């Protein structure tokens, strides 16, 4: 009896279990995929937003992990990260190889290029308005050009993939396009995007790509293309991948015109504040909306740089310590090099080696935190920071060079919550750079007067004394070569820590001169109320020419393709 009841139950259960044929079907885990993203206007725009989030790929002061960026692997700053796995050490000691070079320039760039191509592929079928389709196509195409340019400066010519969206089974072309093809492609994309984009945005759209950004990128691109590293790269038999095979001075003309195109938009100006002198150079970096930034990496209110760069007494990590070489590049308040403008009874405003931080280019105090320089402290007062030997918390040898970074830090913000965060965004394209691009290109085509005008504008904003001749310390009637030296130093000073220096010394082909010699710090000893100054060697970086003028393509990629050629020497 009992079993007769039980057995049917068992078999019923068994059958019920067996009959659920769809028991192994996958359940839905998300409603987010390609179809649902591009059938919704908000999600479509969010897809585009993702491409923005990597715009600072190359320029980020944290690019190489922790608190190191491109500025930490050149002749600008020493980092306090000293582990053998830190990229500043790997680069500076020459331990870098195609196997351990950061792969981000390659991988993140191509990832974003794919995102642009996915976006463009889906754009016609999205529910966006026609105007928005047009504008966002411009934004997307600019960003694709932007990521290609990042690769171009790292590697030379790279494979151009057009609008392709690959699947894993596709034959992915590994053949590198020539440098010229890449320049032409990026330039034409800049032009095309410029035609689709507005001059400016307001409200919630502020910070998106403008027509000006397209022209500014083109200016930078053509300046690089005309520079010695790429303009006539005859030293390698590379079919034009690493640069133009034949030099052509007319490329400078194109570069000058491209810079002028930005200027002629009449959209941008240097932020000038006269009191105190050069204060605009400080203020522009902490002003979210300004007329000098052409493109910025937009962030929310933050303390990022204060946390990284401020000294310990200000609650920061004191992570980046500028070399003496950078400090010495800043001239005097008269606009002259410190070697030429020494203090004397007849020249009371000259450089005084016994008191080296006064009578200097005002940008020095806004870029470098030196012994006695002032910063906000946790008690909300502005007090001096001391870096002399043994000074509590901040002193040498805790700062290896005797300096900390000050540039772009907000005077009202420190790491501590006793202050408010700053609205600072990080500059990617800035009008001052365009003026310097214009000056450099003009000088190279012999239009030295134009170069004078641009440098004077930069120096005027910097708060340098105009001098009796109104030349801001510039010598009259300089030759092209003399002017080139001035422009190169002006770029180093004006654009310090903004990623430019590392690439500038390469495209000028002067890296083997400037990146192979000892870099110094300042050991300051306090004797009562006076200080004595002594330079000490911090490190002698390694630079092997011509191998290290370009980064190696990650070895893992080279291994996968017979078509993809490695850069010479790697």
């Amino acid at each position: 009896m009992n079993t007769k009841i039980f057995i049917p139950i068992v078999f019923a259960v068994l059958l019920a279990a067996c009959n659920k044929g769809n028991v192994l079907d996958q359940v839905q885990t998300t409603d987010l995929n390609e179809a649902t993203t591009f059938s919704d206007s908000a999600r479509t725009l969010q897809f585009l937003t993702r491409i923005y989030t990597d715009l600072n790929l190359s320029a980020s002061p944290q690019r190489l992990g922790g608190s190191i960026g491109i500025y930490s692997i050149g002749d600008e700053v020493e980092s306090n990260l000293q582990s053998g796995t830190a990229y500043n050490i790997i680069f500076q000691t020459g331990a870098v190889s195609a196997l351990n070079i950061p792969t981000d320039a390659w991988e993140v760039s191509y990832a974003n290029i794919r995102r642009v191509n996915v976006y463009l592929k889906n754009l016609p079928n999205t529910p966006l308005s026609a105007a928005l389709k047009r504008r966002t196509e411009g934004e997307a195409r600019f960003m694709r050009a932007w990521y290609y340019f990042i690769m171009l400066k790292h590697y030379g010519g790279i494979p151009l993939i057009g609008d392709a969206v690959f699947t894993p089974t596709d034959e992915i072309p590994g053949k590198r396009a020539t440098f010229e093809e890449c320049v032409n492609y990026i330039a034409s994309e800049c032009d095309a995007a410029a035609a689709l984009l507005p001059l400016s945005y307001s409200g919630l759209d502020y910070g998106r790509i403008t027509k000006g950004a397209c022209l500014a990128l083109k200016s930078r691109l053509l300046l690089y293309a005309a520079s010695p590293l790429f303009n006539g790269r005859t030293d390698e038999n590379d079919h034009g991948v690493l640069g133009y095979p034949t030099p052509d001075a007319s490329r400078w003309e194109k570069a000058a015109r491209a810079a002028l195109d930005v200027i002629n938009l009449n959209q941008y100006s240097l932020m000038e504040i006269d009191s105190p002198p050069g204060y605009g150079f400080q203020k522009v970096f902490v002003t979210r909306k300004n007329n000098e930034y052409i493109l910025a990496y937009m962030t929310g209110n933050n303390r990022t740089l204060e946390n990284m760069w401020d000294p310990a007494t200000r609650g920061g990590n004191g992570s980046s310590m500028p070399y003496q070489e950078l400090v010495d590049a800043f001239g005097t308040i008269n606009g002259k090099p410190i070697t030429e403008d020494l203090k004397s009874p007849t020249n009371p405003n000259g450089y005084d080696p016994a008191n080296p931080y006064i009578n200097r280019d005002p940008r020095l105090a806004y870029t470098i935190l030196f012994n006695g320089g002032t910063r906000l402290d946790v008690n909300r007062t502005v007090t001096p920071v001391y870096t002399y030997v043994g000074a509590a918390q901040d002193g040498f040898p805790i700062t290896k060079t005797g300096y900390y970074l000050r540039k772009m830090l907000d005077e009202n913000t420190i790491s501590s919550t006793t202050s408010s965060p700053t609205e600072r965004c990080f500059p990617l394209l800035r009008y001052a750079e365009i003026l310097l691009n214009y000056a450099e290109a003009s000088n190279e085509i012999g239009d030295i007067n134009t170069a004078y005008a641009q440098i004077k504008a930069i120096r005027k904003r910097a708060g340098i004394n105009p001098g009796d001749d109104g030349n801001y310390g510039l010598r009259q009637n300089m030759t092209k070569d003399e002017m080139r030296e001035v422009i190169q130093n002006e770029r180093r000073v004006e654009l310090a820590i903004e990623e430019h220096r590392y690439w500038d010394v390469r495209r000028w082909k002067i890296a083997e001169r400037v990146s192979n010699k000892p870099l110094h710090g300042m050991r300051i000893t306090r004797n009562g109320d006076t200080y004595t100054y002594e330079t000490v060697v911090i490190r002698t970086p390694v630079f092997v020419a011509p191998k290290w003028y370009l980064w190696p393509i990650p070895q893992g990629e080279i291994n996968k393709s017979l078509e993809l050629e490695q850069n010479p020497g790697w």
Partner: protein
Amino acid sequence: MKHLLKAILIVCFSLPCAVYAQTIQGVVRGEDGPIVGASVQEKDVSTNGVITGANGSFTLTLKGVTKTILVTAVGYLDKEITIKDTNAELTIIMEQNAKGLDDVIVVGYGTTKKITNTGAVTSVSAADVRNIPTSNIQNTLIGRAPGFISQQRTGQPGMSGAEFYIRGVNSLSGESQKPLIIVDDVEYTYDQVSQLDVNEIESFSILKDASTTAVYGIKGANGVLVITTKRGKIGKPMINANTEHAMQTPVTHPKFLDAYTVAQLRNEALRNDGLPEEFTQEDLEHWRLKDDPYGHPDVDWYHEVFKKYSYQTRNTIDISGGTPKIKYFISAGHLFQDGYLRNFSRGDYEAPKNNYAYQRFTFRSNLDMQATNTLKLRLDVTGRTGTTTEPHISTSPLATVYSYQRLPPYAAPLINPDGSYPWAFRSRNIYWETSLIGRLALQGYDKTFRNELNILFNAEQRLDFITKGLSVSWRVAYAGDISYDRSLYRNNIPAFYFNPVDSSYTIHSNGLYRLEPLTLSSSPQNTISRKTVNTLAKLNYARSFGKHNVRGMLLYNLDNVTRGSYNSATGVAAVQEYAPVVLQGTTLRLEYNYLQRYLLEFNGAYNGSSQFVGRHTKGFFPAISAGWNIAEENFFKNITFVDMLKIRASWGLTGSDVTAGNVYKTEQVYNPGPNYNFGETSNNFPSIQEGTLGNLDITWEKSRKTNVGIDAQLFNNKLSVTVDYFYDYRYDQLYVKDDVLKIIGVGLPYTNSAITENKGFDGQVSYYNRKDKLSYGATFTFSRARNKILYQGEATPRYPHLARTGRPIGQAFGYHVLGFFQTQEEVDNYPHLADAKPGDLKYEDVNGDGAIDQQDYVPIGKPNLPQTVLGTSLSFGYGNFSLNILFQGSFDYSYRISTNQVIPFQANLQKVVLGRWTPETAATATFPRLSSILAGPSSPSNSSDFWMVTNAYYIRFKNIELGYQIPKSILRKFRISAARLYASGYNLYTWANFKLYNQDPEIQSGGSGAVYPVQKVYNIGLQIGF
């Protein structure tokens, strides 16, 4: 369910009435005397039975027709007696079950007998490991079970469960290396099995070859650990209580140099770098004389922060027993493991207790009911609740103590003269941390609570009325697991630098003058829930037809696993909802033997997994095995010293459906990306990005396993030998191939591509003898497994020495060190890293390109997981005394030391540094020259074989237990039936070939080194039975 209950009720109330009752009386005896608690049962009325009383006597009223009784007792062979004369007093003599051939071995979804088993199975009785004082049962099996390879990475209370593998690893995916763990037919995770109390466990079985794992089909490829829990046996209630108390102390700990030596070496390092010395002669003199405890402190931080011994206790109580109608095993357990921090607290108002600790409560209730003559019901309910405590501190105390940068011996005094906490004024600037002991005293705790509940219901119906030997059972099991975190903490404490020169106090840069209030938080990201529901229906058949014995099993299995992290907030990226995994399968087992002489077995599973789609959902996993009991042959009968000799072989296919991560690998989904900030004022905009590409064609990993083994029992079963050779070929492994250009711009999907092989042998030899009061035995176990990558879609590297294909899984790569550079001339004449000087490591320029870079890397050493594991256990018994000893050794592995452990002035300096290279000691140096530059050319961050023990081994005196059975004559007065006093130890001594670094030999290679040390344990226990 309702019908089922009705059925049970009907059965209970309609028990067959006695028509023709006869009462018999008798005594059950063994060789040594009467047997108490033996079961006497009427054969054809299985509900009718009794248990023998104090003198082995019983009285039973027969109700059936055949008048046959079945007598069973633990340790004796079953006996069947047909009653002829119901009036005579019966004396039943039971024969001891010494041969062990009828020993039952637990295998997947059932049991088998040792003699007819054709697969590779190792069985360990939980009784053998019950008294080992460790909180995690997997730590007890290494050295005892051949094929079981484990490494205990940490000794932290609550997290000290070893990683373990069966016959090593044989998959490129870490997740797919872990064995399947089955507790009472329900799948458990590593974490869950760590929580089990050993007192609840009856036996462990390790299933190694295809014939034993094929029943798990798609999940069997990594071997299976099968655990069964204790069940009640027919007998009067037995109460068993056990209490253990232990002291734990680290197996090894770092031994740092004192401040005077360190300061001298610091100056030497700076001189070597051409930098000015940091400390003056006056400073050094203070440290030498130790006369300035505040200005020139010299603190042995390790001993100030950590205590030598910490306490551990384990207490269990269980009641078991039963009648033929109902059997029960009910137990409760408690474990508390204290941490190794000293107590710095200054009263509860400031901060709660925050030492590392683990507290666990477990309970289990296993019930078996004989509902009718033919229906058995089973209900198991078990739960565990554990609490793990850690101090709330950003860098662990041991890591802080290891770090020269944070805490050199002269960092700070322990406490200021006024009782306030100092900060580390002589550490490196970014680490001017407040006092470590102050933080430990005041910063509070982080706790993780873990709760588990398992329920299992089973019904088994004999179907003899259809055909004899047929039965069906149905089971549903639930396993749930929820854990969440809770912290009571503050992040900062006030601290002051006391300057003894002017007796001034300087506040720490955090600016705190008084204690912040404690914050209570629970971290939703760490909340984990896991739910497994398993439904199983099984048809069993076993019957003998004369000389032919047949067994069969058909099983249907449905497994549903849901896992996720819970977060009450919405849309936060930390939320991880895992795609639920459903597993469905039918398993078939057929066994046939002829006179237990020729054995043949077929196992097969037809499984499906929701991890895959379409025609890749389901697969068939067959295995066949055969055995030949040579000793059963007639021609062998004369060879009397051989009791059993069996040759067996198996071949089959198993699978692994494990895929890493939380989404199906078949589809591409889009994910939220990082935010961006547009607008004239700050406005966060969310973003969306493409996820990794999907692959609809993926399917399970497959393993082709071959196993050949021999079992022998000799000399009246005193000596037994088992040896197995195996070869596993694992193919179609789910792997992301690295041969597509990253120009594709998106994560590549998994494909079934990689191939590895694993081969080796394992086994054991054991001897046991007993003479009067003396018994003694020894068991030697051995395991060896070596794997190799055969294919992984690797792009051809530039140099063959960089290829990973053809090398073992987990092979390390680095520079080969030729020695130290002895002279500047030598440095100049050989390729070197920047800044190399005499006394630095000389790396071989393998590719001969004149530069040292990663293109010169070569394979160095062996994988971190030992390839050879040996164990020797010895046991002695004399009268009431017993002694058990286990030695365990692991061989053929490599261990790489990391920067944080050894680099001078990154780590605190240990004795090994004294062998540094100096021009004077150039010939005998054992350590590179000292340098203040942490990332110098000799740093371990340049992976090299100098910082590696390439052929590491260790042997541990793993376990000893000395027991004394208190004589019954004494116990009777206290109404105690049995009592045993014992002392045991765990990890008592370690011989290893890298004591130089004061590291435990089992910790993770290249890890931080500052993990909670593995503990040795001294334990005493008392076991009482009522």
